[in-house]
């Protein structure tokens, strides 16, 4: 029954295919050859698909035939064995048989000619032991797919267990022209083949076992049939018609099962396993004989060989050796191909070795395989389409490949191309289609890899950013802890400094030991804190509310612990450095300034922190917690600033006593103080910004923020005051040296200018805010109720104060130094004059602004009375007065400037002064006139826009006109008197 079944395996068909000249008879004329041992065997470590094997031997090692010389390197890898006994001559890069023509690491074996086998251990109990053990054994025997790809057999067999196997197909089709190695193998080792198939069937347990063989191998078919019927085997033979590429795995599966391997999947996915006949024989040899895979059948053929034949060849045998064996005619050789003419690749050199997958060496003459004809245009004849076994549209793929439209090529299933070469074979225009497809495929793969890479890089970048953010947050938290501790430290130290007047020198080492310990504790605590903070951060990111609270508690506990530790440490360390410090009077300012530095750093840090919080506050204005924090920080800041000011006072004190170093110290102090002031001001600005934003969104916290602003401004004021104090002290401390003093004064002047500018900026801001409020349509009353106008006034007062201060300052140094360094004072005076001019300009700008505001109010249609009620007109008048004052001041200062320069012109002074007065008066009047004119203009405009108030406005116009007239007459008079005066002179 079975014998009858054996003959009738159904054969299906596949699309396309070609019938190239077979050229198989040449190599079947001679019996199987056994070439002699070459001088050396070159054994590449990567003969299979997957990771290269790892060599087990060293150069100089003696190995026996069949001994393992390299083991697998990972899952998808294989073993390698010594094909003969001998010595390892080298492990080095050699040219290998690969389409790339590149070199690879090879073990070079020098045979000793004895062919001494290592003890063979066949796996006789393969039917009893577990299948995994058998697979492992196969792996150790170095068995890989002999068909061409070289896929490790044990991996393929493992994969076959994915689905229940319906078909176990033995590929004996050998469809490529010229190659007869499998044909010869079947003829020579029929029984071994069948036994090998049976072993594999035991491992995979397929429903059907089919040997697929092309009908051009009648001898092999007959031999197989004889053996199978003799053994009454369940193995079927399916004789398929000769058609290239029926030996392709997918095509053979289609031929024998009628099923197609889904694109992108493996035969195992549809319950099919394919094994090459060579693999089956190798499995048999390994299991029943214990022989590892060390040799194979290879076809030597081509017109350049006089004795084409099949040989059983040891791996590593150089191709040149085999060519020699087959009576090779070098003159005839034009193309040396490893593999068949359809899918083989050309070899650069005959020095490359035979490897496990080398099934054919084709030494072709020029006549046999002529150089390809020149490529012509594709006429889309469709012959390629008729030949394609994958049912692709090769002509379309060519079009897309040529125009680099890779997306379209992919859409036309470029990656289902098996590169069999049928299309190129039939192309009447000699287009190397497969080359185009290979190029497109590799371009697409490259692009994909680049995509993956860029994705990875993006991920890495994002991870890094997240990490950095987390680190920054951590640092912030640390800073907070440190600042708390150090602010305590600073106060402690100050106390400690005077108390510990004379500590013994012996105490120092003990304290350092203890401090070390403390430091370690702190470090540990900090690392714990870090961890907790990280967790907290994660929890916040993931929005685990309960965790956040819990962690927050832990974090604060940890921070407190660290703070207390640090306090202790601070006490320790403060004791240590103060001991030597008290010994010398000179050294004393150093630690104090250190303290000061620290305190200032703290101030800066708190400032930064405050900024951040304020930012947050702006983003989430309803967060009560944040607000609390902000206020806490502000108190901190104040405290820190207090310490700074105290410290700086103390430094001043110290500078008073110590005459030598004070100047440098003072200037340092000044610098620092200035920085502090700047920071405080920045904080003020921030708060103001926040306020603005809050106003914009009409947030309810405006008042709170305003308070903050006020506080911040106060702080800034305080700082400025403290800044002013040491300056006042400084000149007193060193009255002798005039030149450096002027420098200090110059510094002070500069600073003051900065202050002024800032104050003015503050005014501007206040005005802007008021403006904003107005734009928001707030009632004038509301605006008045808000503290902005008052603030504005304050700021303006301050400005005035500062300006006065500066003026007095400017005169003071000039008075002090007038005798000793007139040139310097002159410079300072010039500076002062410049500054004053700037002030004037600013004041004028202020006036303009006030006017604008009034104008705005009017535009908004407010009644005149309302406008009068608002403080703007008043302010305008004030500003004008101030301007006048400033101008007057300028004139006086100008005179004071002129005094040192023109010492002799004492009497001219009297003349100049009234002249200046007159000039300023004229100016003023001019301004008044201009203002009045502007007023009239405005009123006229209003008259146009609101005729119902016409009477009122007209009256006003008349009034202003009168004012204008009087101002003009005054102006005229003044100009007249001025000209008179000039004439008099």
């Amino acid at each position, binding site marked *: 029954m079975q014998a009858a079944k054996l003959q009738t395996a159904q054969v299906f068909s596949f699309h396309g295919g070609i019938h190239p000249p077979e050229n198989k008879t040449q190599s079947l004329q001679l019996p199987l050859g056994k070439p002699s041992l070459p001088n050396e065997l070159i054994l590449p470590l990567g003969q299979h698909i997957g990771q290269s094997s790892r060599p087990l031997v060293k150069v100089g090692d003696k190995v026996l035939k069949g001994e393992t010389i390299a083991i697998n390197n990972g899952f998808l890898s294989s073993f390698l064995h010594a094909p003969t006994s001998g010595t390892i001559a080298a492990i080095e890069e050699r040219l290998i048989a690969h389409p790339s023509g590149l070199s690879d690491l090879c073990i070079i074996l020098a045979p000793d000619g004895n062919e001494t086998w290592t003890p063979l251990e066949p796996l006789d109990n393969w039917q009893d032991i577990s299948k995994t053990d058998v697979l492992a054994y196969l792996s150790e025997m170095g068995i890989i797919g002999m068909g061409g790809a070289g896929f490790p057999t044990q991996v393929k067999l493992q994969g076959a267990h994915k689905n229940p196997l319906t078909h176990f197909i033995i590929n004996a089709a050998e469809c490529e022209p010229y190659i007869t190695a499998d044909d010869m193998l079947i003829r020579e080792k029929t029984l071994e083949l069948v036994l090998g198939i049976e072993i594999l069937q035991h491992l995979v347990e397929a429903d059907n076992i089919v040997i697929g063989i092309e009908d051009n191998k009648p001898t092999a078919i007959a031999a197989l049939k004889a053996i199978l019927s003799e053994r009454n085997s369940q193995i079927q033979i399916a004789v398929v018609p000769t058609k290239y590429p029926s030996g392709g795995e997918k095509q053979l599966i289609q031929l024998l099962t009628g099923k197609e391997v889904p*694109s992108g999947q493996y035969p195992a996915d549809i319950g099919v396993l394919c094994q090459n006949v060579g693999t089956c024989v190798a499995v048999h040899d390994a299991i029943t004989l214990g022989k590892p895979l060390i040799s194979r059948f290879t076809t030597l053929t081509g017109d350049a060989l006089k004795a084409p034949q099949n040989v059983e060849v040891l791996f590593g045998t150089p191709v040149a050796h085999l060519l020699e064996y087959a009576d090779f005619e*070098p003159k005839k050789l034009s193309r040396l191909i490893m593999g068949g003419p359809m899918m083989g690749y050309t070899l650069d050199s005959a020095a490359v070795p035979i490897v496990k997958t080398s099934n054919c060496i084709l030494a072709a003459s020029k006549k046999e395989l002529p150089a390809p004809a020149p490529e012509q245009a594709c006429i*889309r004849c469709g012959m390629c389409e008729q030949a394609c076994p*994958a*049912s692709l549209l090769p002509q*379309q793929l060519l079009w897309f490949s040529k125009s680099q439209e890779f997306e379209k090529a992919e859409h036309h299933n470029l990656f289902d191309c098996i590169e069999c*070469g049928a299309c190129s074979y039939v192309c009447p225009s000699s287009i190397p289609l497969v080359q185009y497809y290979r190029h497109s495929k590799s371009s697409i793969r490259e692009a994909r890899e680049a995509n993956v890479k860029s994705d990875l890089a993006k991920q890495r970048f994002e991870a890094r950013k997240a990490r950095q953010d987390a680190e920054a947050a951590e640092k912030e938290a640390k800073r907070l802890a440190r600042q708390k501790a150090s602010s305590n430290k600073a106060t402690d130290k100050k106390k400690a400094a005077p108390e510990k007047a004379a500590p013994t020198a012996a105490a120092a080492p003990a304290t350092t030991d203890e401090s070390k310990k403390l430091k370690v504790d702190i470090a540990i605590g900090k690392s714990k804190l870090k961890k907790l903070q990280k967790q907290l951060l994660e929890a916040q990111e993931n929005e685990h509310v309960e965790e956040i609270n819990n962690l927050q508690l832990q974090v604060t506990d940890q921070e407190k612990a660290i703070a207390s530790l640090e306090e202790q440490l601070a006490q320790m360390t403060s004791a240590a450095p103060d001991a030597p410090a008290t010994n010398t009077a000179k050294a004393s300012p150093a630690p104090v300034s250190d303290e000061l530095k620290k305190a200032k750093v703290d101030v800066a840090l708190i400032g930064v922190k405050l900024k951040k919080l304020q930012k947050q506050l702006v983003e989430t204005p309803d967060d009560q917690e944040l607000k609390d924090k902000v206020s806490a920080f502000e108190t901190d800041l104040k405290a820190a600033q207090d310490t700074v000011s105290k410290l700086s006072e103390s430094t001043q004190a110290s500078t008073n006593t110590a005459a030598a170093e004070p100047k440098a110290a003072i200037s340092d102090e000044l610098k620092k103080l200035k920085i502090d002031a700047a920071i405080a001001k920045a904080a003020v600005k921030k708060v103001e910004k926040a306020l603005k934003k809050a106003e914009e969104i009409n947030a309810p916290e405006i008042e709170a923020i305003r308070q903050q602003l006020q506080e911040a401004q106060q702080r800034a004021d305080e700082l400025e005051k403290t800044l002013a104090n040491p300056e006042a002290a400084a000149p007193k401390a060193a009255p002798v040296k005039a030149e450096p003093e002027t420098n200090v004064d110059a510094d002070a002047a500069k600073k003051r200018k900065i202050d002024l500018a800032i104050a003015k900026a503050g005014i501007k801001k206040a005005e802007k805010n008021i403006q904003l409020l107005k734009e928001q349509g707030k009632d004038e009353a509301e605006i008045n109720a808000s503290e902005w106008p008052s603030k504005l006034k304050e700021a303006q007062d301050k400005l005035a104060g500062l300006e006065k201060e500066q003026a007095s300052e400017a005169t003071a140094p000039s008075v002090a130094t007038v005798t000793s360094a007139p040139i310097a004072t002159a410079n300072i005076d010039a500076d002062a004059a410049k500054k004053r001019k700037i002030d004037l300009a600013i004041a004028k700008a202020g006036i303009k602004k006030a006017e604008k505001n009034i104008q705005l109010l009017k535009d908004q249609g407010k009644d005149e009375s309302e406008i009068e009620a608002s403080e703007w007109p008043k302010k305008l008048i004030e500003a004008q007065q101030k301007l006048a004052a400033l101008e007057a001041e300028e004139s006086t200062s100008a005179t004071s400037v002129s005094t040192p320069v023109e010492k002799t012109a004492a009497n001219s002074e009297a003349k100049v002064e009234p002249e200046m007065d007159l000039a300023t008066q004229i100016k003023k009047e001019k301004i008044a006139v201009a203002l009045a004119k502007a007023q009239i203009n405005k009123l006229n405009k209003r008259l146009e826009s609101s005729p119902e108030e016409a009477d009122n406005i007209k009256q006003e116009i008349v009034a202003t006109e009168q004012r204008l007239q009087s101002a003009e007459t005054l102006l005229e008079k003044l100009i007249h008197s001025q000209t008179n005066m000039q004439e008099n002179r």
Partner: protein
Amino acid sequence: MALLRITSPHTQRAGRRTSWVMQMVILATIPGIVVQTWLFGWGTLINLMIACITALLSEAAILAVRRRAVGFFLKDYSALLTAVLLGVALPPVVPWWVTVTAVAFAIIFAKQLYGGLGNNPFNPAMVGYAIVLVSFPVPMSQWLGVQSMIPAGETLSFMQSLQAIFHHLPVIDSYTMATPLDGFKHKDLLDSQAAFSSIAALQGPSLNSWLWVNAAYLVGGLGLIWLRIITWHTPAALLGALLVMAGVFHLFDPSNTATPFFQLTTGAAMFGAFFIATDPVSSCTSNRGRLIYGAGIGILIYIIRSWGGYPDGVAFGVLLMNFSAPLIDYYTQPRTYGHKKAKTGLKVGEDN
């Protein structure tokens, strides 16, 4: 050892080059040419000579202008094939300048200006034919009649043909006759039966002459299919569609329409099906696509013949389907091995 290094495959089907393909198509027209010459005199051969010379000259000239290898491209026989197809398609006594215009336009404009062989979206021969058909309708409608039907009672001699083509033949009117399609087109109000019994062009000898011509081209076309130069899809679809159209309309309205057999054996039905519609460059690529393409031409031929302004519609049918060939191609991709169904359209970015 200077070894050749190229990638696989290393072998090619011997002999079957593009030039061979073109030569085979030219050879396959020989039965038709012989029958046409036998029926209508030397004019066809003279036309062929003029067309071939014009084609080679214009191809050489335009290749030279385009700085291409003149010899290499002339040897692909594609220009000659265009000339031959045009030469047999034009009426036998058409003035020489009509032939020259048609061929030169086909080679220069319809083929080379698009980039030469393989890049022309339209069938060059049919572009040339359509141009002269539209431009010079009078000489283009001047077909000769069979010997037994015309007043002269004989076919034109060689010299007469030359004279007719290059100069002017006063007696030409006694040799010309309407083609059956022309005759049927202008049957006016006659019903089919009356037309077939009264109109000269629809009498037996005239119909038979065109039957012979079509049979000759059918033989040539079958030879091409046997040589696997063309596939059966396009001609079968074309003729099938024409048959179905003619059959259906004849069934519904036998008094006003001609039989399917008449439709298939007159005019350029066979010539168009096997030699024009199968031009690979401008037609569809996949087998399914070719079926649609061929059927489209068949339907258009029937429509133009029945309701259009011209007696025959092969040229316009082919040109119209040339337009839609790329679209058809996008929607008729074959199902690739390992895929459940064929992809259609050009949705880029879907699964592969």
